[in-house]
Structures are given as structure tokens and as C-alpha cells.
């Protein structure tokens, strides 16, 4: 097999894929390894993961939580090939007219249910001694959250950028909790099919190689402007989003993050949250049903490993061996 396809959706940490595609960097690296890589943008984030899970794509950009609950829970053995960034304030809880997270008690909270926003809310509530029982979650599509927020009935939302900055820019809006309070827990990945990667290491090498070449251009204003426009904002807006994102511009940083002991802990939280909300599937008897492999050890069932954090390709990039 020498034709591969990956998909991505619009998000600050994934815009480099667009730039890599339109600037030819990805093609350059694919040519180097004598393969073809098709890069496809998908408007709807969940749809892109579903497509990957159904086998239409070999790789897809997604968060650590969705990697666990969609492909892994569907039995598709997946590998986090690139750890691109983690959210460091890019996701947040916003209250209208109230300044403390505790005030969220008994409010209706609009968010995309079962997404990282939901996870962030759960972690936030935990931190102030509340639980989901103390609020009422209303599923609201991300595309309409901004419009929804400007209606009087909506008093609190949890969302990500660029929606978050749209919302906080409105008068009397207060960000009371954000992902910088739980650093490193919401991680943005490039996930690829483990079997495909195993049979075609060239595919992994080309992607990682291309990614870090793109990363090396990210200080260039022209490149950033390009990415900003592709996500329908301007340079300042995009820069603001980058500021709340901890990008791993260097492969070495990404490798050390992946190898840290915090990762398995984070994934434990995520697995527990997912199980509590019934999104690990029917077969799951407890949160340990799915095995998650990290360099620091396996979380969950060792005989059912479906999600692997594998820094070896990023290591090659760090070592300049690509």
C-alpha cells in the first residue's frame, strides 16, 4: 500500500495540516518516502472521526478523549502518532454576569455533550466540590453556540476556541475555569490506524517529518496569516488562539510530554469520565475495559489495548533521523 489519506478539521492546533497540504510540504515528504498522502478537510469534527473509525481514512486529527471513545471503543486499534499540543486555556467555562465557577450551581449549561467541553466541565465541577447533578447540561451544536450565548435564556457555556474568544468578548462574560487549570489533560493528536502504521512505517515517517518541518515555519508571519485565513479569522485572532494553546514546536518536547508520568494519570481520568457517561460502549463493564498504552505503562486492560501513545516516530524527528 502506498496511497494514504488523512483527515482534519478546523481547529487552531490542526491548521498546520492545511498549510502543509497547500504549501506542498506534505507532498515533499510523501515523495521522499515514495508514497502518496491525501489530506482532506472535513467541516464537521465528529464526522471526521467517524469516517476514520469506519476505515475511510488512515489517520485523523482528534483529542485524546475522542480517540478513546470513538475509534478505540469501536475496536479500531489506533496510535497517537503525533502529540501536537495541549489546550492551555483554549477550552473554558464562561458564565454570564457571574465571576466564580461555584455560581454555576443549578444553572443550565450549554455545551457539546460528551465532548472535551463536557470533560472540562466535569473536572471543573470536581475542583469546586460540585458534580454534574448540580447543573443541567443542554447539548448545543458548536456552530450555534455563539448565537445561542447572545440569547437571554443562556447563562453559562463551555466551549473551545475560536468560539470561546467570541463569547468572552461579549460584555459581562467571565471565563471562570479553563483548560490551563488542568494543563496537559486535553491533548490534540494525529491518530493513525495501528495496523496501517505497523505495515507501513514510511507513512508514519512522512507524516511526522512533514509535521515538524511545518512547525519550524510557525514563527513566520506569512504562514500564520495563511492559517488564520483558512480558519476564517485574521492574524490577531489566530495569534490569540495560539497563545492559549501549548504547541509542541519541537519534537523533543512532544516526546518528553508523552513519556511523562502525567499522561497515564490523565488517561485514567478520561477513561473514568467516559465510562461514567456510558460512551465506552455496551461491552464496557468498567473504566478499565479498554487498554491504553503509554511509555509509562498501560492504563486499563492489557489484553485489550486499542489506544497507543507511541513516541518512537517523534523521537526519530527529534534525532533528525527522518
Amino acid at each position, binding site marked *: 500500500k502506498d496511497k494514504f489519506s488523512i483527515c482534519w478539521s478546523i481547529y487552531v492546533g490542526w491548521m498546520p495540516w492545511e498549510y502543509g497540504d497547500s504549501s506542498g510540504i506534505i507532498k515533499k515528504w510523501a515523495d521522499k518516502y515514495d508514497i502518496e498522502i491525501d489530506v482532506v478537510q472535513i467541516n464537521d469534527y*465528529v464526522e471526521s472521526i467517524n469516517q476514520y*473509525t469506519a476505515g475511510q481514512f488512515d489517520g485523523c486529527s482528534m483529542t485524546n478523549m475522542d480517540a478513546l471513545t470513538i475509534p478505540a471503543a*469501536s*475496536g479500531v486499534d489506533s496510535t497517537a502518532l503525533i502529540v501536537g499540543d495541549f489546550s492551555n486555556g483554549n477550552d473554558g467555562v464562561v458564565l454570564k454576569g457571574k465571576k466564580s465557577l461555584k455560581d454555576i450551581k443549578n444553572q443550565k449549561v450549554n455545551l457539546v455533550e460528551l465532548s472535551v467541553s463536557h470533560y472540562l466541565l466535569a473536572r471543573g465541577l470536581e475542583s469546586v466540590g460540585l458534580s454534574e447533578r448540580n447543573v443541567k447540561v443542554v447539548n448545543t451544536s458548536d456552530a*450555534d453556540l455563539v*448565537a445561542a450565548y447572545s440569547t437571554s435564556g443562556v447563562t453559562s457555556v463551555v466551549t473551545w476556541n475560536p468560539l470561546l474568544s467570541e463569547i468572552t468578548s461579549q460584555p459581562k462574560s467571565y471565563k471562570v475555569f479553563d483548560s490551563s487549570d488542568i494543563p496537559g489533560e486535553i491533548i490534540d493528536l494525529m491518530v493513525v490506524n495501528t495496523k496501517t502504521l505497523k505495515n507501513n512505517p514510511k507513512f508514519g515517517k512522512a507524516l511526522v517529518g512533514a509535521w515538524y518541518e511545518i512547525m519550524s515555519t510557525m514563527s513566520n508571519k506569512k504562514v500564520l496569516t495563511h492559517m488564520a485565513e483558512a480558519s476564517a479569522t485574521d492574524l490577531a485572532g489566530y495569534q490569540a488562539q495560539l497563545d492559549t494553546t501549548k504547541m509542541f514546536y519541537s519534537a523533543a518536547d512532544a516526546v518528553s510530554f508523552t513519556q511523562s508520568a502525567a499522561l497515564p494519570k490523565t488517561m485514567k481520568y478520561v477513561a473514568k469520565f467516559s465510562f461514567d457517561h456510558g460512551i465506552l460502549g455496551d*461491552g464496557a463493564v468498567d473504566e478499565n475495559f479498554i487498554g491504553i498504552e503509554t511509555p509509562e505503562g498501560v492504563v486499563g486492560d492489557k489484553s485489550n489495548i486499542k489506544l497507543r501513545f507511541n513516541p518512537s516516530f517523534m523521537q526519530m524527528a527529534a534525532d533528525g533521523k527522518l
Partner: protein
Amino acid sequence: MKRLMNIEPSRFWRTFLTIVPFIVIIALYWSASDARLAENPNDKLLPSFTQISSAIDRMAFTENKRTGEYLFWQDSAASLYRILLGITISAAIGLIIGLINGLLPGVRAGLSPLVTIASLVPPMAILPILFITFGLDELAKVMLIIIGTAPVIIRDMQSQVMQIPKEQLIKAQTLGASTWLVTIRVVLPQIMPKLLAAVRLSLGAAWLFLIAAEAIAAQEGLGYRIFLVRRYMAMDVILPYVAWITVLAFAMDFSLKKMSQVCFPWYHHQEASK
């Protein structure tokens, strides 16, 4: 041999032919599902019938652990309430404005072009405006159904009123009827079966808008559940929900048809004897 167009299958063959396509579809699904599950037993795309029935059992006949509700019935009740309310209001608006527009040339001149244009605006595209105007609660969902279906019903009613032979309207006037009496005793009763027909026609659109509205903001409802569980590709829930919506759509269509036949026998006999 007879011409193809003259070959009428017997009752047995007719039944047989009706059933065959459904059996074929079920069989195709079965084998495709089996094949996928053999490869990956955790695959969620084409669940087996056992998985589907256990999902049905879980949703419809087991108390939800978190909320203590039977989700399926709760969803159905919420959606049915919204669609019935929406379509009823739509029908009422359609009837009243259609009647006035069709009957009074003065009003028609003012309203008809507006309605025509309104019926062409795609409601999905103006969702943000809708939310801001009507909020995110039940009202917004019902309003989306109304905005999506009412202009079409208005236009249909208007043209139906205008199709009533002018002779009848003139005759009523020669019998001393005022505009009001022409409306309620001559036009309204004749337009009622057409209203039911128009409502039947717009049911499809109503379901569409309902699902779209529920997908955007809701806490319960059939469309809400489908779009929520889509997040983890639970096709074992989606498939029975889709089937159930189809059944509900059919039941609503069927009962409107029956209702029309029971309430307006003169209309249906007249149509049949044409």
C-alpha cells in the same frame, strides 16, 4: 403473451412481491454486518440484530441509571409534542392566512409576494437569527417547524381557495351571504380536506426541521438522541430510532388520511367518483 402493462399479478403474487424487497434488504444487511463483526467484534457501524435488540431493551425498557427515566419514551414524547404543536400551529396559520389571501384581493396584493419570498428562504440558513429571536427553548424548535412549513401551507391554501369556482362565491352572494359568511360556510368547509392534505404533505419537512432543531440544542428528543450517540457511533441506537421515526411518520400520515375520510366523506366520495 399479454403486454407487460396488462399483466395484473394475483393477490398471492402481489403480497409476495411486496415482501421480497424487504427480505432482500434485511438479508443484505445481515451478511454485511456479520462480515464486519467477524473482522472486528467491537465494530459499531453495522451492529448485529442482537446488539440492536439489546440497545432497544436498554433504551426503552430499562431505567436509565443516571436519570431514572426510560430514555426512549421520554425522547418520543418530547419530539411528538414538538412536532404536533408545530404542525398544528402551522396548519392554523396556513388556513387563516391562506383563506384571507385567497379570498380578499386587497390583502392578497400585499401579502402574497411576501409569503412567496418567505417560502423560498431556507430556514436552516437563518437558524442563528431564529435562536436569538426565540431563544433556545421549546419555542425555538416549534418555531423552526412553523417557519419551515407554514409558508408552503399558506401558499397551498391560497391557491386552493382561488381554485374554488367563482360561480359558487357569486351564488353565495346572490343568496345574501356576506364576505364573512362566504368564508365560514362556503370556503372553509371545502378547504378543510385540502388543509389536511397539505399538512400530510408537509409532515416530511416538519420531521426534518424537528430533527435539525433537536440536533442543535436540546436535552431530549429523538433527533437529540440520534445526534448525541452519533458522537460515539452507536449505530445500534441510531438504527432503531430511525425506524421508529419512520413508523411515527407513517402513523401520523395514516391517521390524517383516515381523519379526512371520516370528517369529509363528501369530499372523498366526490374525488373517487371523478
